[in-house]
């Protein structure tokens, strides 16, 4: 407890805002909601994003897409690794935020470590997934034919309630291949997502590649699932009862949909989350002189 006599310094609190297009705005709606710790004590007023914030986030993600997807895979890998370095530097802050969600000190430390390692794992995929998911196809005729995986575009991610490891496990695979993301953070535990945003903002990631919204998932997710300029949705963090409705909305422009699969975040992920947001592009060319 702070000493009311003033002999101990009063902490300067952080205002938790949204992360859109590389900037940290408050919700245009002016709303916020109370984030509590595991013992239901007040921790912060997080921004409660509106549909208009979601719209702005999609615009920012779309604007960032050509540049980000046009980077070389090596460069994306470098930038993501840089993000991991910054994550490591914020380790203590993440541990503290995780402890507020009810984890013990050692659990929180383990999760923070695992999150950094997971990010590093995905960062390394940047210049490898094409070789694994692509192919040269032996067609019957005088043609060279190859298939390459390409990012699908703007991906809306409903992040799970695993506030850090789950979060990085859904964000990293989306952007490493060149997609841009609009992330709806865990509703009860959004703070690590905003801290992650601060990490992203201070690494070399271009603005708009990742956009983070905090607020009510049930309010935001339908707008994103409906949005005609979103190419895919990851419903991992959506409430099971909301999934059918969100999938139906996603059908409006035939978004790629990743359904929740309930897999444990600690398990090695495999490439499924990468390939879920990749398009296979096949190019033909004649062979002749």
């Amino acid at each position: 407890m702070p000493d009311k006599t003033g002999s101990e310094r009063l902490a300067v609190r952080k205002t938790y805002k949204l992360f859109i297009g590389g900037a940290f705005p408050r919700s245009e709606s002016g709303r916020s909601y109370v984030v509590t710790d595991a013992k239901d004590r007040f921790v912060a007023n997080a921004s409660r994003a509106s549909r208009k914030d979601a719209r702005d986030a999609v615009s920012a993600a779309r604007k960032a897409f050509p540049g980000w997807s046009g980077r070389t895979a090596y460069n994306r890998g470098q930038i993501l690794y840089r993000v991991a370095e910054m994550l490591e530097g914020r380790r203590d802050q993440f541990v503290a935020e995780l402890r507020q969600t009810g984890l013990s000190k050692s659990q929180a430390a383990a999760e923070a470590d695992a999150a950094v390692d997971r990010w590093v794992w995905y960062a390394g995929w940047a210049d490898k997934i094409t070789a694994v998911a692509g192919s040269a196809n032996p067609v019957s005729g005088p043609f060279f034919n190859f298939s390459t995986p390409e990012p699908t575009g703007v991906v809306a991610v409903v992040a799970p309630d695993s506030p850090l490891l789950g979060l990085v496990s859904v964000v990293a695979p989306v952007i490493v291949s060149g997609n841009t993301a609009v992330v709806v953070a865990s509703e009860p535990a959004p703070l690590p997502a905003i801290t992650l945003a601060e990490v992203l903002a201070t690494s070399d990631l271009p603005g708009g590649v990742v956009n983070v919204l905090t607020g009510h998932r049930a309010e935001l997710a339908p707008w994103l699932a409906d949005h005609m300029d979103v190419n895919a949705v990851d419903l991992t963090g959506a409430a099971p009862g909301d999934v059918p409705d969100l999938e139906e909305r996603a059908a409006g422009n035939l978004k790629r949909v990743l359904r929740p699969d309930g897999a444990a975040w600690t398990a090695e992920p495999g490439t499924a989350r990468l390939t879920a947001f990749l398009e296979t592009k096949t190019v033909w060319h004649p062979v002749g002189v």
Partner: protein
Amino acid sequence: MASENIFEYAPAPESRSVVDIRGSYGLFVDGEFTDGHGEPFKTINPADETVLADVACADEADVDRAVKAARRAFDEVWGPMPGRERAKYLYRIARIVQERSRELAVLESIDNGKPIRESRDVDLPLVAAHFFYYAGWADKLRHAGFGDDPKPLGVAGQVIPWNFPLLMLAWKIAPALACGNTVVLKPAETTPLTALLFADICRQAELPPGVVNIVTGAGETGRALVAHDGIDKVAFTGSTEVGRQIARVVAGTRKKLTLELGGKAANIVFDDAALDQAVEGIVNGIFFNQGHVCCAGSRLLVQESVAGELLERLKARMATLRIGDPLDKNTDVGAINSAAQLAKIRELSDAGEREGAARWSPPCELPAQGFWFAPTVFTDVAQSHRIAREEIFGPVLSVLTFRTPEEAVTKANNTPYGLSAGIWTEKGSQILWTAQRLRAGVVWANTFNKFDPASPFGGYKESGFGREGGRHGLEGYLSA
């Protein structure tokens, strides 16, 4: 040698005697032809509007029967069967398709209206090749990159269109069976006959009953199939609008979904293109199969500096297209598949004229009976015209021009679709630069409308998701 018609080609009809069309057809369920309980429908020859046969219509109960047969076959026979044995069945089917290829080609042309040259030289060889290709995968799935022990999904409900009836059947059935699934397939109501002949091929191959079931009918039958609780997978090829409906039906279920939908492909011709081959590619891109091709190159984007010369060559080439009897071996453009499709093509073409585009067709006589539409090109088309945005699915080309490569790519991508695209330039770096930027699943550079079982096919955006063909085509039929 003064005669005007010194080298008019005399009719060269392919013989119809290789096919034996029965008066009526039933459903193929559990290895038997059975009656349907819906109202039977007629399938007609679109080239002369004669009735070919009465075809049974599957109602909900019939679909249920077929799904149950497929489930039984999956549980008891096909699922447990070693991959190498499944492979041999598929090889058998491939061989029988080859043995009966002329019969299948003629029947396809009669029921669909496509030229025999195409059904004979394109559709049927690709059908056989597709079964051969996926046969080889059946016992190698663990090497396909989808985990050490990938499993089949179960029963696949598959709905296919009328533009390549048998080829789309092959694209659906071959990978499904190779992966160990069983199928219930619904062919399009205007082109059911080759699917029913395929049922006979399954019997000749002694494929276990229930592994392949064919239910005929229209939209209602398709709805009953994709909505059925007993299926684990839905695969659909057809219009984006129906694809959207299916995605809504499948929402919230465990069913895996792959969709192959519409397109409005840009065929981009740069000023340094090999012009004569580009003209061939444009013609092949939009007049192949009467333009009833989801990946048709229906938007020609030509660089302004060569637009005049290219269009002159294109029109001269179009004048040599031979339109008429699909069974004539010299026919290049056959009949429109149905009255409904013809009406749609007319409606959109009329809209093109109303919106101010210039319409041109070569002089050609169209038969009095049947559904026909002359190869048509619209120039002075703007991006905002309906004929530049909507899929016409007919022999109608919209020509737009561009000035810079950036503008070409921007215009090409300015569509909700993203199935295919074409690039014509002699400059290698320009091909790769353009291909990288095109948001389309298949990019043909200096060629167009090429297909191969080893080559993945499928779209971006509203052209659907999932890929058919190649290693990638297995993914839609395996659980990771």
